[in-house]
């Protein structure tokens, strides 16, 4: 024993003390038990070591591809990794998938999963001129209905409905754009998608209105086509000079009196070419 002799050892090292112990006090369970366990000396099997080293090899590979360069400010494991094109996998959310979810949660009660509505009560979406932007109906009307609701008699596919559609302004621009894109491309409908930037533009223009639209009010507003989703253009010095702006903004203020008062402060931010997150860009 390397440690200096200590008092606790004396307790049972001295034979006479041990003999003082009455044997009857040593309980049967202690008497009958096996000696304290020992270790055998079987070697580690070779196949097991092979498996372990394979795992260690895999671990090195995994770290190399998913470490994000061991940087404190990288949160995406595949960022800057050896697999350069891996970043492309994490694309934006498919608006039709998101749209189906929003539709299932909010719209099916009236318009039904088939999009056919209930005759006499809730108008259909399938082949509806309101949805597809045919006749006097424009994409701007469709977005406005979702933002403010719709009340009073309406004509859809030759039938008259008189009911109330609630406002869905609590949904985000992205959700409204997604659900509109979904209903315009489902059940045989084939109208182009609506972008979140366009929804934001309409929302910003109509902040003043508080009550639901009526069919007659909408008819007074000229129809617009939603612009196709364009890649973000370089920040334009002025909204009027932007090549994308004339398609949407000049048309609205010129003929729509309700939109004029709010148009001038909102126009730079509402340009469909500018991503919604950069309202500060034109000011710079």
């Amino acid at each position: 024993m390397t440690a200096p002799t200590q008092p606790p050892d004396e307790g049972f090292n001295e034979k006479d003390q041990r003999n003082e112990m009455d044997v009857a006090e040593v309980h049967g369970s202690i008497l009958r038990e096996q000696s304290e366990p020992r270790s055998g000396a079987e070697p580690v099997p070779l196949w097991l070591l092979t498996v372990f080293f394979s795992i260690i090899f895999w671990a090195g590979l995994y770290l190399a591809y998913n470490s994000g360069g061991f940087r404190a400010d990288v949160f995406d494991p595949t960022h800057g990794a050896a697999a350069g094109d891996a970043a492309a996998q994490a694309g934006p959310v498919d608006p039709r998938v998101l749209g189906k979810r929003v539709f299932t949660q909010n719209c099916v009660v009236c318009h039904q999963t088939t999009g056919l509505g209930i005759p006499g009560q809730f108008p259909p979406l399938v082949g509806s001129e309101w949805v597809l932007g045919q006749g006097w109906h424009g994409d701007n009307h469709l977005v406005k209905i979702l933002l403010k609701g719709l009340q009073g008699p309406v004509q859809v596919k030759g039938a008259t409905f008189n009911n109330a559609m609630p406002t869905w302004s609590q949904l985000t621009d992205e959700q409204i754009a997604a659900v509109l894109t979904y209903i315009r491309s489902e059940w045989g409908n084939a109208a182009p998608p609506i972008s979140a930037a366009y929804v934001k533009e309409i929302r910003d223009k109509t902040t003043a209105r508080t009550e639901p639209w009526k069919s007659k009010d909408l008819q007074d507003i000229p129809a617009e086509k939603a612009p196709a989703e364009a890649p973000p253009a370089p920040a334009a010095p002025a909204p009027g000079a932007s090549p994308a702006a004339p398609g949407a903004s000049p048309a609205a203020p010129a003929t729509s009196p309700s939109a004029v008062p709010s148009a001038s402060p909102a126009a730079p931010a509402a340009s469909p070419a500018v991503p919604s997150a950069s309202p500060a860009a034109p000011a710079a």
Partner: protein
Amino acid sequence: MKPQSLLSSINPANEPDALASYERAEIDASTRGPVLLFFGSAVFWLLVGSVLGLLAAWKMTHPGLLDSLGFLTFGRIRPAHLNAVIYGWASSAGIGTGLWLMARLCRVPLMHSKLLVSAAVFWNLGVLVGVLGILAGDSRSIEWLEFPGYATPILFVAYACIGIWAVIMFRYRKPGHVYVSQWYLLAAFLWFPWMYATANILLVWQPIQGSAQGAVNWWFAHNVLGLWFVPIGLASAYYMIPKVIGRPIHSYYLAILGFWSLAVFYSWNGMHHLIGGPIPAWMISASVVASVMMFIPVVTVAINHHMTMRGHFDALQWSPTLRFTVFGAMAYTIVSLQGISMAIPSLNTLTHFTDYTIGHAHFGLYGFFSMMMFGAMYYIVPRLVGWEWPSATMIRWHFWLVASGVLLMVGALTIGGILQGLAQYDPTVSFRSSLDYATPFRWLRGISGFLLLAGHLVFATLFVQMLLKVGRRKEGPALFAAPADHKPEAAV
């Protein structure tokens, strides 16, 4: 019974093993007070934790149950259940087992055992104050550290006495081989205060900022399992299996590999709870890798235990200790492999926010650790009180109630969790609707809670009978069945 020589039939003290027996008797006498106190309080907290858990389980299917009582709302009894079970039951049982194993394997009697008795009293005081504090609404809302600030120092002071004493025992060990269980115990007694102090300092006393709190929190919470309960549980298995069947453990080298790979890799594992979360990507990837590396300690220990048991599995028919311990060892292998799979990001996205994780946690802490502790108690308590377990039938009831209870719970939560996760993948199903898929399985989980509580009541009854030495003195051990004569396993 062992064949007796002429000498030993005249005086039992002349038997060759008698010297070792005297030594053991003296060691057991020195550990009696603190170990029985830890075990007794563990059984008490097991009952408290079971009732709280059962109530929390039924509140998942009946949200209005007892909702007029503020201190029994789900947000309070769920952390109260968790902490009562972690610190009250599992840690107390683990400390009791750890102290006894340490004394036995170091072959030194416990010095100043009264100090440990007072440490046990303080530990229980800390748990009591903590659980009542949570029920009173003082929870800190940090997972696994919900105990309010006024309970933590009590626990820490109590633990300091316990841990220091275990390490001192190791310092005074008799010369000779240091057995596997001693490595695990020494490590666990040193790891726990390190983790507990670090987590309390970084999360409570001087909280660090931002999402790093989440990282520290899961580092702690996962390590309590892997660097506190796992080493104590494995120390118990490494002791009980060879002790009961009377043959050496299969391989010293596998044991070394298993111990050091656990020590090196486990501490990195906790971040896999934050996959997809706002912490640097490399931390999560390193944790995923370390979690997969757990394959090494788990498979190593599984092989070592299995090869030791090989040819002796019939002892499961009669030895209660072995049956509980082997159940725990098998559960350890399965639950660890399951945990590895859950750390792989593509599978984690399926299971993360579902009941699957809860099933996994219970499989680990109950199927593995609690069963291991039952097995250890069935071995240790008769040696401390000098009395045999009064009824093998009741032990059998205990085993089958808790074994079927935990398997039903884990099975139900696993299946329900997978269905819930698949529903969450479906973009047309809202989160609220995805819960409906888990509801029927939550009913089954509630039923499994009754099985577990019944099993615990049986065990508590047995334990109290042991303390009071109820009934007539029995000579032989309480076995499920008569062992084969030629088998050394009769000597449990």
